[in-house]
Each structure stands twice: as C-alpha cells, then as structure tokens.
C-alpha cells in the first residue's frame, strides 16, 4: 500500500479537500458534493421494481471477444494481468444479488434502522473496489434503489475508467473515485471528501452495520492474499471501515485464498491467515462454487494457454477458480484491542513449524520460551485453561491460540520488539564481490 503514497500527495495538491460544493473556476472539481446524492435518495423509497435500472440502459461493455484488446493489451503490466474481473453479466447479477441479500438475517433492523442514514430513509452505501471493466458494477446498478443509494467505485486504471466513468451519467447513485482500493489513502480521502459523513457509527454489539457494505474483486497476485489479510486484521482494533461498526464485506477471490482463509484446525490448508480469519470473522461462500465454474465462462482475462509453462504457483495462475466470499466480523473478538502484534508474532513464529507439536515448536518462539509450558499446562488451572502440548501447531484452535497469546503476554521475558518482520538483513555484512 506504500506504493501509492505518491498518487495521494499529488492529489492533495489538486483536489479540493472537502466537499464544499464549489464548482471551482480554476480547476475542474473531481468530486461532486455527496449531499447531492443524498437528495436523490428519496427516490429509493419507491417500490422496488420501479427502482430497478435495466441493464440495457447502462453504458455497454465491449463484446466479449474485444475484452482482451481493450482491457489487457499484450504489454500491460503484470499487476493488471493478475486482476481478475467478472465478465459474464448473468453471473455478475447473481453475485450482486447474493452480496446484497445475505446480511439481512443479521440486521437488527428495528434498532439500527432507527438511526443515522436509515432514519432519514436512506438505505445503504456500497463501496466497490477493484471493479475492473465494471460488469459487477453494472449488475449492482440493476438492483432497486432501496438496496443501496450510493455506490462508491474505486478504480485507477485508465482503460477501466473509460467504461466506469460514463455510469455516473446514467445512474446518479454511482460515484467513480479514480484511485486504487489498494491504498489506505483512498479511504482516508473518502472520508475527507465527506462521502462517508452520514454513515452512523454503530456499536459493535449492535449487530451488522445496516448502511455500509464493502465489495471487492481481489487481484490474483500475491497482493490478493495480503489484501484479504489486511482487511481482516483491521477488525480487532476497529480500524479502517470497521470504525463504523461491523461492516460486512464481500470479496471475489481465488479459491486458493478462500481455502487458506477458511481452513479449520483439521485441514491441511490451515495457516496464519486461517487463524486470523477464524479469530475475527465469519466467512462463508456467497454462491455455491460451481456457479462460478468453469473459469472461462465467467471471468476476464481468459487463460493464455500458449507460451511457456508459468512458474507461478497454481493459486496465482490466471484461470484459477474464483469464489465469492461473505465476511461478517464476529461480535466477540478473540484478539483483544492492541493485541494484534502479539498474535502476529506468535503466529508467525509458530506456524513456521506448523507440523510440529507445540511442545517442540514453542522453543523457537523466543529465547527461553520453554518456560511458557508451565502456565499452559499447570495442573492447578481449570481444564479449559490448559493446553495439550502434543497438539500440532496447525491443529490449534482459536481457544488454544488465545491461551498461548495470553501466556506470552504475561511472560516477563517476552521480546518487546515484535515489529521487525524479519531480522534477516542481507547486505549488512556483504560478501566481497560487487
């Protein structure tokens, strides 16, 4: 996310900082006043069917055969080639519906609707990141106005923007923000621009957030898993969008990332990400996976079968099966406030030895960490606070982890500097050759 700092700063110089409705004389305003949008929201109270925008009314996407030429010409950068987007309009529609429907059972409707935007009769704000050419965006726009009244689209790739920007003209719910969903700055900007001013802060124990929802394609690159990880890791400290409450997320991501994030203690894919996911949120598939198979019928870009065999891992090859995932933050968070670093540290250290028993692995946590065995196995403790030291690291469940981290936290000799992600520093004592 560092990479886009540059973009953000140059933006600061050009764009008006807040949504102070000035259509400036010198430079073109980049953003409209969000409050304008909220005026149009009153339409959304219309009966649902009449609120639906027919797909045909929307600015059309190119013919399928043209997608490759328009959106991923041969020399496009790697980062773009690894961005997977929905191509099939029917699938897009199915996902759009799935994404917007699943939270309903979790809403504490009577209470939540009585506050904030809902009180004013305004339903939801959707944020869509990495829309790509916009098939999903279009599918969302076919949904009735009572589903959502504002769609903030985060996209910075010019070829995609050409097909997203026109949507603003057709549906006033749309606002295209020409910056990447990958950069934290983009979200700070959303706030500073006032686009989220009317989002109520809903207490964590007050159910799922009724009026903010985040949707995103997740790139297939290594960034993808990172992104999933980052979103989840914002939950415990209620950072990012979670400062507004238990905001639901929907991600379209590779099966590989899904498997890793949803793996339980008995599965072989169990990893750090699975534990973090386990600790922070409820993950489920929005649609049955078969609905999105085979890949070629639903997604862009198409697989290049020609050429050399790729050295990439299977999970990162274009053509890898995709899934739609629904994420709902837990009400009870296993990771306490400001404890994330300790969790990260212990997970990182111990998962290196995921096949080993805790008894063996715990020594590599820190020098002297063997002494943690005592508080974890002390017979004087009630059984639910004791740990089976013969359990393999990857078999540990959330309760086990919570105990380990608690013991680590109480240990006076626990290393304080948990921030260095790797103490390995090549070049600090270089070899003799240039």
């Amino acid at each position, binding site marked *: *996310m*560092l*990479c886009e*700092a*540059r973009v953000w*700063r*140059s933006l600061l110089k050009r764009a008006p900082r807040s949504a102070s409705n000035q259509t400036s004389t010198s430079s073109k305003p980049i953003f409209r006043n969000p409050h304008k949008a909220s005026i149009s929201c009153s339409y959304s109270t219309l009966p649902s069917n009449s609120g639906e925008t027919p797909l045909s009314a929307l600015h059309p996407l190119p013919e399928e055969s043209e997608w490759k030429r328009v959106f991923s010409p*041969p*020399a496009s*950068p*790697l*980062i773009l080639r690894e961005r997977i987007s929905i191509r099939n309009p029917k699938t897009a529609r199915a996902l759009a519906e799935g994404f917007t429907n699943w939270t309903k059972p979790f809403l504490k409707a009577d209470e939540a609707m009585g506050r904030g935007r809902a009180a004013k009769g305004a339903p939801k704000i959707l944020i869509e990141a990495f829309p790509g050419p916009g098939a999903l965006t279009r599918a969302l726009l076919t949904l009735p106005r009572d589903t959502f009244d504002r769609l903030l689209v985060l996209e910075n790739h010019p070829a995609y923007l050409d097909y997203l920007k026109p949507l603003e003209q057709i549906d006033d719910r749309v606002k295209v923000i020409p910056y990447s969903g990958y950069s*934290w*700055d983009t979200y*700070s900007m959303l706030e500073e621009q006032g686009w989220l001013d009317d989002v109520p802060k809903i207490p964590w124990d007050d159910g799922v957030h009724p009026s903010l929802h985040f949707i995103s394609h997740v790139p297939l690159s290594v960034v993808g898993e990172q992104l999933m990880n*980052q979103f989840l890791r*914002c939950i415990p*400290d*209620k*950072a*990012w969008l979670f*400062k507004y409450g238990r905001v639901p997320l929907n991600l379209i991501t590779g099966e590989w990332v899904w498997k890793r994030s949803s793996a339980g203690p008995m599965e072989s894919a169990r990893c750090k990400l699975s534990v973090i996911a386990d600790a922070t949120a409820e993950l489920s598939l929005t649609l049955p996976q078969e609905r999105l198979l085979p890949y070629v019928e639903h997604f862009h870009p198409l697989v290049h079968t020609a050429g*050399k065999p790729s050295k990439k891992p299977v999970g990162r090859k274009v053509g890898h099966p995709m899934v739609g995932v629904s994420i709902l933050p837990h009400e009870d968070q296993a990771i306490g*406030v*400001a404890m994330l670093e300790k969790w990260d540290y212990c997970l*990182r*250290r111990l998962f*290196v*030895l995921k096949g080993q028993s805790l008894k063996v692995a715990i*020594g*590599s*946590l820190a*020098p*002297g960490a*063997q*002494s943690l065995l005592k508080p974890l196995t002390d017979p004087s403790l009630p059984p639910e606070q004791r740990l089976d030291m013969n359990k393999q690291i990857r078999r540990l469940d959330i309760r086990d982890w919570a105990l380990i981290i608690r013991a680590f936290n109480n240990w*006076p*000799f626990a*290393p304080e*500097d948990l*921030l*260095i*992600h*790797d*103490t*390995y*520093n*090549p*070049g*600090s*004592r270089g070899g*003799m*050759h*240039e």
Partner: protein
Amino acid sequence: MSKPAGQSDATGSEDMQSFLNRSTSFTLLPTPLPPDHNSHLHDLYFIDSVTQDSLAVIDACLHNCYDVSRAKQIFETLRKSPKAEVVLDIRLYNSLLESFIAMATSKDIDNRLIWLEDACTLFNSMETGMEVAVPNATTYAIMFSTWLSFNPKSSQPILPSDIGMREPPALLRGLVDRQIPVSHIVASRSISSDKEAADIIKLLSKTAVDMNLVSVVDELGRTQALGNSLFPDPLRDVPEAMPVLRPKEYDPTLGEPFDPNDPDQQEIPFNLEVLRKQLGQLALARRVLPDDVASRQKLLEDSVYEEAAERLKHQAEVFDKLGLGDGSLRGSHLQSWMWEWHQKLQKRLKIEIADVVKKEEAIVDSKANSRLGPFLSLVSPDKLSLITILELMRLQGSGGVSEGMKTARALLTIGRAIELEHKSEICRRNNITIPTSNPQTGPGYFTKSGYRDLHARRVAARKFMEDSEEWAATWTQILRVKVGSFLVDALMDVATVVRSTTIKQTGEIVYEEQPAFFHSYEYLRGHKLGVVRLNPEVAERMSRDGLRETLHPRQLPMLVKPKPWLSYDQGGYFYSQSSAMRFKESQEQQSYLKHASDQGNLELVYAGLDVLGSTPWQVNQKVFDVVLKVWNSGERMCKIPPAVYDAPEPEKPENYEADPKARMVYLARQKAWSQGKANNHSGRCSVNYKVEIARAFLGDQIYLPHNMDFRGRAYPIPPHLNHIGDDLSRGLLLFAEAKPLGASGLRWLKIHLANLCGFDKGSFDERAQFVDDHLADIYDSAERPLEGNRWWQKAEDPWQCLAACMELRSALESPDPLAFESNFPVHQDGTCNGLQHYAALGGDSQGAQQVNLGATDRPSDVYSYVAAMVQERIKSDAAKQVRFAMMLEGKITRKVVKQTVMTTVYGVTFVGARDQIEKQLKERKDIPEEECWLVASYLAKKVMECIGNLFSGAQEIQTWLNICARLISKSIPPARIPAAVSAPQKKRKTSATDSTKDEQMTSVIWTTPLGLPIVQPYRRAKKKQVATSIQTVYISDPNAPATVNSVKQASAFPPNFIHSLDATHMMLTALECQTQGLTFASVHDSYWTHACSVDQMSGIIRDTFIALHSSNILGKLHDEFVERYKGYRVPIAWLKSGTLVKQLAAREHTTSDEILNSAAQRDSVEPKEVGPHTSTEDLLEALDLALGSEEDLEEDEPQEREVTPTEAKTETEGSGDTGPAVSKRKKRRTREEMKASYPLGLGDELKFVELTKLLPTVPKKGNFEVNTVKKSLYFFS
C-alpha cells in the same frame, strides 16, 4: 615522474612485455558431465561425494586405530574402482601400513600375524608396481621399523617367510633403485623417537656394508653427524611474551609433543628433530628463521584451544575470588559463561560420544557413510566442546542475521573446524619444517629462466612438504553438517544463562534460566531459513566484553612471514590449512586450480601472493590510544558506533490502532530504527574485534597472509584487522619498516592527507597547498585529537586522516623533516579503475580522458561529472513539479551516484543501482524513511540514463564479452553431442529446448595473462535437504554436477573479466615493486607504498599497465576461446529461441529456413556448420537482439517489472526521449511477434552449429595509444 636510473628497469619491463606476449599455457580439463553420467576421463578430474566420503571414513577409522578393519575394507573397494588412480595417494597407503603395524604391535596382538601379513602384502604389491602409488621414503621407513620390531632376532620374533616380509637387503635395494636418499628414511615422520632413528641408521649401515653400497654408507655417516651436531633447540627459548595469549603459563600436561622440559629429549645424543630441521634447510637451501618468532607463531597456531580454555578458566577463577560466585552476577560475564558451558559440554560430549560409539558398534550393517563415531573420536571431547562454543560465538551476526547466524552455515563451519583441527593436529605432530620464501634473486620473475627457477624451487619445497606429511581426507559437506549438528545440539542443551528483567507494573526483578542459544526459522522471500540465535543477554555482551577467546589464529595476523604458496592448498598459515583461492562451492574451480598448479602455470600468481603476504605491518600505537579512549567512553565517533544506540525511537502515533495508514508509516520507521539498532550492535562487535586484535599485537611486526577470489583478486586471509578493511582498520595499520621521506616523500604525504580529507579533485599542487593551508588544524588534530577542534573528524576517512595528521606533524617537527623515517603507507588509487581497463582495451580516447589515462593538468572526475548531469535533469524535472525531483533537488552529490557509476561498468542492474542509491539516501537522512525506496527508484533511473552513452566504448566490449559468454554457456562439448541428439527422442513430452538442457554444462573459462585459469561457478546447483538433530538444513553439494546458469554466466562475465585484469595489473605491480625493492600493499585498485617510493611506484604502475594492455588481451581471449571450445556446438533450438534466425535472414537476404538448412541437417550427428557467408558482424548484432534479454525478462524480479513499465511510460512521454525502460518494452514486443512467426521446426533439436564459428570478431580498437599513460599524472593518484 622520476625514474630510477639504470638499465635493470628497462630490461625488466621488456621481460614483462615479452612474458605477457608469450602464448599462455592453458589449463584444459573436460567439461563436467550432466548428472548421472560418468566417464573415466571425468573421474580423473572430479571426485564425487561418495568417494570423498569413503576417504573421510578411512581417515577417521585409521585415526588412533579406531576401526582399521573397516578402513581396510573400504580401501579394498576403492582400490578396485576406476577412481583409484586419482584418489589414492602414497600418503594414504603409508597411513594404512602404519595402522596395520600399530594393530600388530599393540592394539590387536592376538591377530598379529594377520596384520603383519596385510602390511607386507600391501607393501609388496606397491613395490612390484601393482599399485597406483609408488613407495616413498616414509614407506621404506615404516618397513625398516617393522623389520626392527619383528625380525627373527627381535624380542617379538616372527619368521619373515610366514608373512612375506622383505628383508633389509631387499628393502635397501628398492630404496636405492628409486633414488631415495637414506637420510630421508632416517628423518621420516614415521620414525617417532631418536632411539628408533639411531637403530635404523645402524641397521641401514650394516646392510649397506654387506651389500657394498659405499655411497649409502657415506651418506649415513653424514646423516649421523648432522643428527649429533649441536643445534639450538628451537623451543628452548620460547619467550614468555605471547601476543594474544599472554600471560603465558604453559602446561606441560597438555600433550605438547616437543616439550623442552622433557629430559628424555636432551639426554640422547642423536637428535631427530635437529636432523629434520637441518635436512629441511639443506633440501630447500633456505634462510634460517629467527627461531623465537617462528616458534611463537607455532605456539600461536598450536595451542589455541588449550589457551582459550586456560583463559576462560582463569577468568572464572578470578570472578570466584572476587566473591562474584553467586549465580546471577557471575552470569553476566561472557568468559565465565563460556567456561561454565565448556565444563558442562565436555562432560556431556564424553558420555554422548561413548554412547554413539557403542550404538554404532552394535550395527552390523556396514553402510559406510552413516557412522559418526569415528569422526567424533578424532579430536578430544574438551576440544570438541571448545571449538563448538568458540565458533558459534564467532559466527554471531554473520550472514545478515542479527544476533545469530544461519543454521546451515553454523553447522558447516563447526564441522569444518573439527576437520581442520584434526588436520592441524596431524600437522603439528609431524612438526614439518617450514620452508620460508627466499627473496627473488637472479634473473627476475619474467624471464624464462627466472620462471623455471621459481617453478623448480616450488616443486622441490612442495615435494618435501608432502613427503613428510601424514595423509588426511577432506570431508564432505554432509559429514560436516552431521558432526556440526551433533555438537551444536549438545551445546544448546547444556548452555544456559540467567536472565533478569523488571516487571513494569510492580517494579519487581525476576530471574529466569534460559538457553544461551536457540534455533528458529525465518521466512526469507518465501524460503524457510533456519537460524541459530544467541540469547539477547549473550548477544548484548558480545559488543562489550573481551572477545579474543573466540578468535582462532586463522583469523589473526601472523608473526612471521607466511608460508609461501607451494600448491593450491599449501601456504599462508603454518599449521592451519588454507586454500590459495576462495572457491564458491565449485569443484570445477578447485580442479582447474589444482591442475594449473601441477602444470606449473601459477608460479607468478603464487609469487605475487607471497609478495603481498611478506609485507610487514605494525599497529599504529598513537591512533590505537585514541581509538581505545573513544571505545571505552562508549560514545559515537567517526564510525565507531556508540555503546548504546543513540537514535531516537520513532514515536507511536495516537491513531496507530485505528488508522492503517498511520500504522504503516510508523511500522516502516520502527523497522528502520530496529535495523539501525541491530547494525549498531554488529558494528560495535566488529570494532570490538579490531580493538582486541590491535591491542594483542601492539609492538609486534605482523604479516597478513593473502589468498585470492576466483577472479584472482587478492585478499588478506585474517578477516578482522587488515589493510583492506574499513577506515578504522586502515588507520590502525602502518608499515613496519620506515624509510626517510625526502622532498618527494614529504610532498606525497601531504597529497595523501588531502586525498583522505576528500580534497582529491584538485591538482597535486593544489592538494599540497590545501594541506599547507590547514597546518594549524592538522597540528591541533595530531596533538589534541579528542580535546581540540577535531578537524580530522570531518574528513571522508577520519581515522586515516588522523593517522596522517600525526605522521605529518611528527615529520615537520623532527629536526630534519626530509630525513624523517616514515612508515606511513601512501596510497595511489586508480580513478575508476574498471573504466580505465575498458578504455585501454577499446583504445577509446574519449573514455580514456574521462578516467585520466590521458595527459592532463587536472584530474577528471567521472563521478562528479555524472552527478552534475543528474543534477541538471532533476532540476528540470523539479521545475515540472515532479515530486521526487523536488525532494531531491540539491541533494545529488558525488557520493550519491559514485557506487552506481562505478558498478555500471561491472554490469549493475536497475535493482542493484536502486538499492545502492537507497542506501546512500538513507544515510543522508534528509529524506523520510518510508519514501526512500520510491525516490531511489526514480533517481536510479535518472543516473542510469545519464551514464547511458557516456561510456560507449566500454559498452561495446561488454556486449562482445556478453555474447561470447552466452554462446559458450549454451554450447555442448563434442563428446556429448550424440547424447544430446538422442535426448529429445527419449523425452517426447517436454519441449525441445528443455530436453537438451541437461546437457548445458559448459561454463565460461579463461586464463589471465599470468596463467591463472578463471572458472565461472554459476550453476543451477540443487540444494539438498539434510535432516539433523537440530533442524533440517539445505546445503548444496559442490561435488554434484549441475547445469550452468547461462544468464548469470553471461551477465557476470564482463565484470569478472575486468576484475581478472585488474588483479593481473596488481600482481604485476607487486612483483615489479618487489624486484625494485619497494614495500607494496594493495586494496584491489589502490596501491600502497612508502611516501618516498611513490614516484618510483607510479612509474611501475604505468609500465605494468602499458605492458598489460600492449599484449592484445581481447585477441588472445578470442584465441583462447577458439582453442578451449574447439568442437563445442550450440543447438539450433537454443539459438532459435530468440530472434537470431530472423535477424540473420534479413541481413543475408535469404530465408531463415535456408540458413538453418545450410547450418545443419536433420538427424545428423556431425552437422554442417553455418555457412561461411555469414559475417560475424551481423551475427553479433543478431545475437545481441536475439539473446539480449530473453532470459533476463524471464527471471526478473516481479516487482521490478511491476514498477518500471508504468512509470517509464509517464515519464518518458513527457520528455520525449526514449529511456532504457521503453526500449526494453519495445524489445519485448518485437520478440513476442518474432516468436510467433518463427516456431521451432521439426527436428530442430537435432541440429547444431559449431561454437567457434559463431563467436563474433573482437571489437575494433580505437586510436587511443596506451603509452600515453606514461605522461598521465592522475592515472593513479
């Protein structure tokens, strides 16, 4: 430039010239075979790991007769294998004989007859020429002793005919026939006592008289006289003052073999030791060493571990006496910890080893390589223990791991240390007389007779050494790892420290016993990396407490002139084995070096290393005093890091938890801070070593033995304190000999001081003036270095500057400054030496001017020039509001770009340049930490653009070298062509290019003008997983063949080639300086001598450079390739994978099919070659495009690709020029189109082109005349 008068110089350089023009003698070995193939020829040059392991097992089993039967059994197998010829040498035979006899004598008396019969059978087989090895003096000595012990009249009589024992006349006959002097029998290392020697003389005399061999009787008489003569016992007066090891209290119980206090050795009139020493002198006609230093050196290398143990014990006792005996406090001293661990570990090892041995005895399965017992029994448990502790402590901070080390390296190093200790025990037991270098006399290095003389002397000395050496085998990597892990595992189990901490909430102090070492894993770019870490408590101590216990003499300077290099693994330290070349895990390099040495191609290389090693140094006491004061104060000063890291820790922002962005920035800064702290710690440790060593050697004359890297660049072997090290190390060293300054010397001293201050851009007069203008500052610095105005600290090289200030002041204050005896080394540095060589190679006038090859009034500085160019561009970008340009404006100094400019000619990549620049920017500290990476990317691009066409001459040569290397690394030796042809048919599934890839085994090899073969080691070595008791480690087996990494072979060739040239230039200069009596030292392209000798050395530097570059270097390189790779062929399929064919067709106005058809015929093992109508010029261009970056792209780091194209686009569109990034994009596109239109034809995999026909012609030379260098003032300055 004043030149010494006289003819000798002129003829000297003529000799050198004709030496360099001679046809170089190449070392030609077969190209390694692909995995799973072998041939007899191949076996002759390359030993596989299984064989090496067998040898190691034999060695270990013979040691102390651990398991002689097993050794015999493995030996029998080896003897029958085709590898016998290469691996079995006479020393191994002798060891076997000795062990058989030892079994018969004491270990297995019950089976005496069988053992004796084994020995006699083996000997008889050797004697009758049935064996690979021919008996030598030691063999006969063993057989004579055997006779003495077991003849029918002895106390243990045996009938000779029962066991086939030869009688003395037969033995003597064999001896005489082989022309082995009887004196060598008497002096043989296998004779252990004076009495035995005397008995053998008696026996030999009687036999010789009986046989009427008058000359033998005479020789025996002389031998006896030598043995009886009065010769001072070399160890009688060993001085108490032991450097490093002082105070010395020698303990006679520690098993010192030649103990002067042992009365036995003095009572017996015949003194074997004296005989040996005298014989050594006679054999080598050498000058006698001053005994005291020689024996001090011996003791220094001898007893390191005993001494270390003594010191640790002593320290522990002192602490005890001081009443610090209670656990917690005592635990805070490194030495007493180490002593404690040592106590526990040796006990533990004793038990565990005994256990291992017992368990292994129970195993009947004779699988040779799985036993550890024999190897763990080679060295005593207390030594094993100490070696493990010391090596582990020493490795702390190595390999980029802070407060720890990589597990694989730790285990290998410890395994290797045990192996070396075993070898040096043997070496010390034999007490081999040390030949010392004799100063070069007579006809000079470069004449034919001089060269022959050198060769003859070295061979004689080597023979002498080998005859008197016991055999020891080299261990395989796996064995080292296994032994290492056994020891480290035990250590980790026993070594603990008591740590204390304060609980923040309560203020209560708590203690906990923790392991001193622990192991864990890190992830490094997705790879799991095992590390061993020190407990933070221990690591902390490493930067404060005395460290000398952890140093092996292998890491210390020597007290005597190093042993001259007698062979590739003989030289340098006396009793520790070192290699003349630092191999990069490459058996091929070792084989080439060994064979070049055997062929006598390396005399001047060895001589050069000897010259470098024989320069005497001393520690600069005045500077040392200042350093020590600063060190003890714990403050930061001039690159000495502070005891406590002094940078403020970044503050945690308030919105840290809630704002991911703020968190990210904070983490970046925090990480940089932690890194800084870790670096501070390792810097502190490194200075600690230097201070300790300097302190230990105060007042001593010291020597730095040298060896070289695989390109032939020389390096001092002691790693910590040497003249090649940092500013501090250099500031601490002076030449040991002083010479009067004279007028020119005084001037050079001043110029040198100006250079050290960074004032090196002006003319010499201006530099001298600069010093005159700052005399007050200089005096102040010299007199009150810490209390004064500290002018010296502002210098680029402060410690050297301080040393120079002190020297200049002393000179000026002396009664006659011109007569002042100065031992200060003055440097002459090449100004961008790589480019100098390129300019001379290409005859590039413009380039030559840039790097001061031409005659000018003022030095030209290419770094400042580039910095100015970059600054210009930044300025214009800044005007366009480019953010990074605005951040960088006014910050582009010479220093920021220097490394990148320098390394451009060595082929630095964008990624490399970015990292270099990022480092410089971070050092400046005026750019926010988290921005440095992006800013560096931007700046690196600018710098590389600016350099772009500046050195076009260099670029052309680089390209030529690169293409040659690409072709070579893609070629297949003639013998493998049939296999390569049949390969694709076997594996139909894979594509044609892949299937033949197994055959890609040819590395780029060339010979330097001095005769050194240079082998590029880059191969796709497969790492092997070895499970140890600690961790699973990945190690590569240097003996296992692997295909070449052709991308690396090609990209590394230009820089390696230039380095081989600068190394040659340095060696020539060293030899010539030695001839002319100058003291010389070098740091690659920085040459050092006394101030008064600078003018003379300057002349030499220029003469050697001219001689070197007048010898048609590139032409000879081309010729060598043609000879070396004769008959090698390149598969068409590999050529076709680029755009070569299409380019070729376009140039030849024909179709690609025609070219390919004329080039090769399908299914033909002896294909036709590419038609002669193809001009190499065209090929060169074609190849450039074709092979240019196909594979580079494939293997680029992805991040580089992600960033460059987009940014390149936005930036170049604006300025309208075509930067490198854009052309790369174009290239890629063209290539893709090409590939589409030229798919591989059917059967292409069966076609080949002869390599030598493809090699492009040598680039034409420009009109720069290298002789001009003579007139250049600033060439080296």
